[in-house]
Structures are given as structure tokens and as C-alpha cells.
């Protein structure tokens, strides 16, 4: 985990010049970037470039997965073979992507009103085109954008963020070096109301540090991630009058 000789914090600034609580820039979300998917979203978050596409509700394949009471969600997170500065990646699912697809799907199942569409499936495909750490939480956020764009009803809205520890200091939104050589990483997804829908952690943290991660994580989702998502929806869907009224 920890690597000698790499200084992640210098003179109170992080390796990329950010303060401890700053989120990477750019951070922007655009809806409706694909023509064929029923809904889509594109997220740029630091050097992460992620596209998500949603199909459905549509007939379930294979049929035996059908649920007479609600829709099922199929979710596939994948990274492009050229998404890392290092070697050429392997195409197709791997153990990491299968796990991430599962935790992202479980978080989505919480907010989508699945009971509205029995005997159907909603497919969520996410591709990380370019990666710079924190891809799972950015991917979740992209997936929510794509679901909104597809017009799929949700009971609330949610977004993701990671908080971690580098050189003994807790910091928000880990970048690539911080992710690789830091001491801990806590990816999280929160609803607008503060419910935790995705929670993972590796590294070493005290209980107080876990508390800091959960507190800051929610604060940043509420104050930065969700407003950006809202802005993306308004940009695509709000008519001129609504936009003027907002002013």
C-alpha cells in the first residue's frame, strides 16, 4: 500500500495542488450523450471519463430471471483497455469489475422504483473510458444520470464520493497516486437524505477516521455531487422559461 519516496502531501497541499477537502476539477455531468440508449450520461471527474447507458424497462432475458412483482436491474461496470496510463488492459469482465458491478447494482436497487415495472429488466451499462481513481463512485453517479435521462422513476437521488487517508491525513476525493499509494480508501454512495447505499473500505483507519469519512462524504455528495447532477438535468430538460425563473 504505502510506498516510500512518494510524498503525497507537501506544504499543506496535495500532490495535485488541491486542499484536503477539494474535489477534483473538472467535475461535470452531461445527459443524453448517446443516440441509441434509452438514457445516457457522461461524467468527467478529474481525469476520469465515464459514459453510462440505460436500456429498459424491457422484456427480461433470460426469461427465468423475470420477477412478477418488480423490475430487475442488470448492471455492468467495465473499464476500457486503454483507460490506464500503464499497460493495455484486458477486455471483458474481471474479478474487480464483477464485484463493482454488484455493489453499484445493489445501490441502484435502493432508489429505482422497481415495483412500477414488474416482469421487466432495466439494464445499466457503464464504461470507464479513462481512469484516474475513484471510478466506482463516479460510475454510480453516471448511472444515476443515465437512469434520469431514461425517464425511470426513482424515490430519491443519490451520488458517490470517496474519502481516504494519505500521508496520515484524511482527504476527500482521492486521485490516482493517492489511491495507489495512500493508506486508506472509503468509497461511498449517499442518498440526498444521507442514507448510505454503498460502503467499502480498505487500508487502516481508526473509528474517528471512519466517522470523518462518512461525515465529509455525505457533505460533499449533498453540496457538490447532487447539485451538479441537478444542473445536468436542468440543462437538458428545463425549458427557457424555467431557466429564467431559476434566476
Amino acid at each position, binding site marked *: 500500500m504505502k510506498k516510500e519516496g512518494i510524498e503525497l502531501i507537501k506544504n499543506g497541499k496535495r500532490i495535485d495542488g488541491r486542499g484536503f477537502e477539494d474535489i477534483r476539477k473538472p467535475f461535470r455531468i452531461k445527459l443524453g450523450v448517446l443516440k441509441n440508449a434509452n438514457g445516457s450520461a457522461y461524467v468527467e471527474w478529474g481525469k476520469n471519463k465515464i459514459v453510462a447507458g440505460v436500456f429498459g424497462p424491457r422484456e427480461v432475458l433470460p426469461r427465468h430471471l423475470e420477477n412478477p412483482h418488480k423490475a430487475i436491474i442488470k448492471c455492468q461496470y467495465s473499464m476500457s483497455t486503454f483507460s490506464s496510463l500503464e499497460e493495455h488492459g484486458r477486455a471483458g469482465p474481471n474479478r474487480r469489475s464483477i464485484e463493482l458491478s454488484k*455493489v453499484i447494482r445493489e445501490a441502484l436497487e435502493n432508489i429505482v422504483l422497481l415495483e412500477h415495472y414488474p416482469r421487466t429488466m432495466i439494464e445499466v451499462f457503464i464504461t470507464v473510458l479513462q481512469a484516474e481513481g475513484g471510478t466506482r463512485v463516479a460510475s454510480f453517479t453516471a448511472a444515476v444520470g443515465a437512469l434520469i435521462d431514461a425517464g425511470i422513476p426513482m424515490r430519491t437521488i443519490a451520488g458517490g464520493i470517496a474519502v481516504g487517508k494519505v500521508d496520515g491525513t484524511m482527504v476527500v476525493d482521492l486521485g490516482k497516486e493517492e489511491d495507489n499509494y495512500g493508506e486508506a480508501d472509503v468509497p461511498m454512495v449517499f442518498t440526498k437524505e444521507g442514507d*448510505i447505499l454503498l460502503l467499502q473500505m480498505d487500508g*487502516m483507519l481508526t473509528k474517528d477516521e471512519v466517522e470523518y469519512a462518512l461525515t465529509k462524504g*455525505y457533505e460533499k455528495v449533498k453540496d457538490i455531487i447532487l447539485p451538479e447532477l441537478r444542473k445536468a438535468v436542468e440543462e437538458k430538460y428545463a425549458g427557457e422559461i424555467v431557466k429564467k425563473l431559476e434566476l
Partner: protein
Amino acid sequence: MGVDVIKNLKRKYLLDLLKKNERIDGRDFHSFREIEVVPNVIDTAEGSALARIGETQVLAGIKFEIVEPFSSDPELGVFITNSEFLPLASSLFEPGPPDENSIEFARVVDRGLRSAEVVDLNSFFIEEGKVLGLFLDLYVLDYGGNLFDTGYLAAMSALLNTKMPKVEDGKIIRGEYKGNLDIKRVVTSTTFVKVDEYMIVDPLLSEELAADSRLTIAVTDEFVVAMQKGGSGGFKKSDVLKMVDITFDKRKEIMKYLR
């Protein structure tokens, strides 16, 4: 496709009990079932242990191989965790390649052991281009809920009882050993499920299937080293912090099985 109906009925039954401060098998909310850990059950492996929590049994086996190091860390040994959900363990398991549950299980156990630096991978260096690889395989023999804690127990006990293979001229001499694997820290875990507002430790399979969400927390003496949430329900911040406290508390009890 009656699964949902059954799940809802089971959830209601469970919730009614929890409201009366009871559980299906009579335990209180924060008690483990009976735990049993037997190390050194497989002679052909360099380390092994069979752990049982209630009706769940996991056999951990450890084998060493000489491998090429990862190009990113040419001097570090390799540590790889896999799991096998044997079809004989449960009618819910099917033969075939590992599914997402099996992959998640192995990766979560791996995460805690790696984060805590249980094994010093620097000591696995042999010569340029050659390092020792430790393969930890978790065989699920019986699945009756709470795989994660049973897996951590089996893995940790096996590691604590692992013999180092003798290496000569860059080759492992099978059947000959030189001392034991050095263990830096011991990891213990506690898994919770939440049903409505109630959180219970060490879920039975029926509790797991009826629950809204699950959280596994792994710790050392001082630190939280891994967390993994499962299921589509939500947790509050206060829930998580309470579960962290209980996990540190439960550690004393679990450590008795790892001596």
C-alpha cells in the same frame, strides 16, 4: 417465482421477533453462534484450517508456488485469495465458474488481510524475477449464513499455522519446511444484517435472505481494515459507527479461536 412472497413473509416473521427482542434461534442481537476452528486439517497444504460458525463451514487451504512478481512491484511476493462455493454446500449454489457472490467473498477476505499487512510480502523475494506466491483458497463446505466471518476465521487460522516451504536453487522442495510463516497482525471480522431498524450479528441464512442490507467490518487491535456493504437497503452513519464499536468488542471473543 414465489421468492419475493417468501422473502416478504420471512422478513415479517423475523421483524416480529426482533420487535420482541428475539431471534429465530433464541440468540440475542449481538451473539455469535457456536464457533469452532480446527487448524492443520490438510497435510498436503502448507497451511490449512476448518472454521465453523453454526451451520456454516469454510475450509481454508494455503499453497506456495514460485511465481513471477507483478511488474509494478518486482520485489514483492504475491498473495492471491480465491473461493470455491462448492455445490455440496447449499442448494443455492450451482456448479460452474465463480459468480459475483463468490468473487465478492474472496475479495473482501483478501482486502482485510492485505490492508492489515498480515503477511510481509517483502520476505517472499527470492531472486530477480522470482518470488513466492501464497495462494489462499477458501472452500465453502456448508452454507448456513455469515460466510464472511467464517471465511476470515478459516483464513486467519490457516495463516497462523502455515509452514514456510524450503526453497533451493529457486525451487520449492515439497514436503520440507523452514519455520513458520511470520504473521504481523491478526484480523477479525464481524458481519451484521439490518432488518428495518434492527441490526443483528452473525446472521443465519434465513436472516440473511430476509434482511435489507449487510455490513462486514474487519479490524486489527486498533484499526478498521476493511468494510463491505451488501444488499440494497441503506445504513445511517450512526449505524455504521455503532457496528464498528461492536466489531472491536467482538474481537476479544473471536481471538480466543486464533491462538
